[in-house]
């Protein structure tokens, strides 16, 4: 299945990209996706435990099983306002 991954702020700087369409195995969850991305972008290991998963515009536990077409991102600590 295919998911859309967005990168913002420090994630965007580290990966050098804002958006990625990725083919992942069925039943991939947030933890598994994190591993897949760390293989593609080894520097992402620095951000382990820092970012929170968001799926389709909502914060979601890392154990969330992703579905085809999901829009996924990792949210570094926010500093708006």
């Amino acid at each position: 299945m295919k998911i859309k991954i967005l990168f913002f702020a420090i994630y965007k700087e580290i990966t050098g990209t804002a958006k990625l369409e990725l083919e992942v195995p069925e039943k991939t969850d947030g933890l598994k996706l994190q591993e897949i991305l760390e293989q593609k972008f080894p520097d992402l290991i620095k951000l382990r435990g820092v970012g929170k998963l968001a799926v389709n515009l909502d914060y979601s536990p890392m154990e969330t099983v992703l579905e085809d077409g999901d829009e996924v991102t990792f949210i570094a600590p926010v500093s708006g306002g």
Partner: protein
Amino acid sequence: MHIKITSEKLDTQKLIEMVEDDGAGAIDIFLGVVRNNMKGKKVISLDYHCYEAMSQKKLEEIVNETYKKFDVKNIAVEHRIGHLQIREASVVIVVSSAHRGASFEACRFVIEEIKKKVPIWKKEYFEDGETWVEGYSPDVP
């Protein structure tokens, strides 16, 4: 309810007019402003980046929750993104209510929630470099 994420300069007066109501006796307004230092280090300017679709959704959720929790008439919120200079406003929150307590409390609630939940990130530029500001780590359900 008025919610907007914009790269244009924020217009406080326009937002005040949006929340006016014949039954409102009080309006509280909060402006977040770029200040010239962060923990003593001199800030030259800064950039706000955001995940716009999710920020819009989270702002709507926050404002809806605020309407439920407080006896207010109208709420308007704008957050600016992009490059900002010292003294420029990054966020403006305007709340009208019949009685003053609700405006103050609702306005405070909105800014606290924004700082916890809305995916916006601040990058500060110093004389000798730049850094992403570490803010709140959002709760995950």
